């Protein structure tokens, strides 16, 4: 089969374009929707904690249950790329939250010091925020450095808010942490869209 030099060049360009689009889709892995979902959950949860602290525990429980259910629904057998890595990532998140809740349960009786309840809740909130960021860092090391930097950035912002703006920590987390997750999802969705 004979083809012209121009036709060959055009074919190679099409190959490059398709390769770039698919690799970005794989790297994204549907994460744009998940970033947007959990960004909105963080914003609602942290603002709720700031302004309705009495209901914070129930609010977060409801948000996490809804968010987890939505995440499983959106990712189980519905991702554009099927990969054994994707399934293992799902199990990573499951066991990560299982273990962190186990550790909190084990040390909880020893953590609540009278007179320091508010400080305890701030630090507990910071732990809850940095647990998923640890998962991002791990996934970023193995899969995509983009997630590594998101994980480290939100962790740093969490610590800044905890130690420099404790009185406004929940609003800080809603704006910076939730905002960063939401913004990341929107960036991926519109910058890397197919």
């Amino acid at each position, binding site marked *: *089969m*004979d*083809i*012209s*030099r121009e036709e*060959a*060049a055009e*074919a*190679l360009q*099409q*190959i490059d374009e*398709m*390769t770039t*689009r*698919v*690799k970005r*889709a*794989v790297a994204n892995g549907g994460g744009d929707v998940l970033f947007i979902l959990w960004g909105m959950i963080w914003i609602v949860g942290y603002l709720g904690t700031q302004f309705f602290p009495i209901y914070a525990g129930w609010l977060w429980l409801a948000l996490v249950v809804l968010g987890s259910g939505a995440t499983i629904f959106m990712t*189980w*057998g*519905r*991702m*554009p*790329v*099927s*990969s*054994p*890595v994707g399934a293992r990532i799902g199990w990573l998140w499951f066991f990560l939250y299982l273990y962190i809740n186990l550790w909190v349960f084990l040390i909880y009786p020893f953590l609540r010091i009278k007179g320091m309840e508010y400080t305890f809740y701030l630090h507990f909130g910071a732990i809850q925020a940095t647990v998923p960021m640890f998962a991002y860092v791990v996934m970023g090391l193995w899969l995509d450095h983009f997630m590594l930097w998101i994980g480290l950035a939100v962790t740093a912002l969490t610590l800044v808010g905890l130690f420099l703006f404790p009185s406004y920590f929940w609003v800080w987390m809603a704006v910076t942490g939730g905002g960063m997750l939401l913004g990341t999802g929107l960036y991926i969705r519109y910058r890397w869209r*197919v």
Partner: protein
Amino acid sequence: MSEIDPIIHQPVRLRIMAALAALGAEEQLEFTYLRDLLGATDGNLGAHLFKLEDAKYIQLTKTFVGRKPRSYIAATLDGRKAFQDHIAALRAIIGEDPS
């Protein structure tokens, strides 16, 4: 010396193979995602996939998610090699070093 593969060189099939070759060895693309990626219709994509499967360049896997059927497509080892040979042939035509 590598030669142009007429099965792969058709524009839609070329892009199909490029998409599949961009995946890792254990990864597969879902049919509707591939269809939207290519801007093709179900029938058009299906016809091209049949041609590539007949040449043993791709493998189709059909499964169910709930009650909805889903098809996943992956390049075979022969398909990946054929695609790489095709790229080498294209580069040779424009005078590039195939490596």
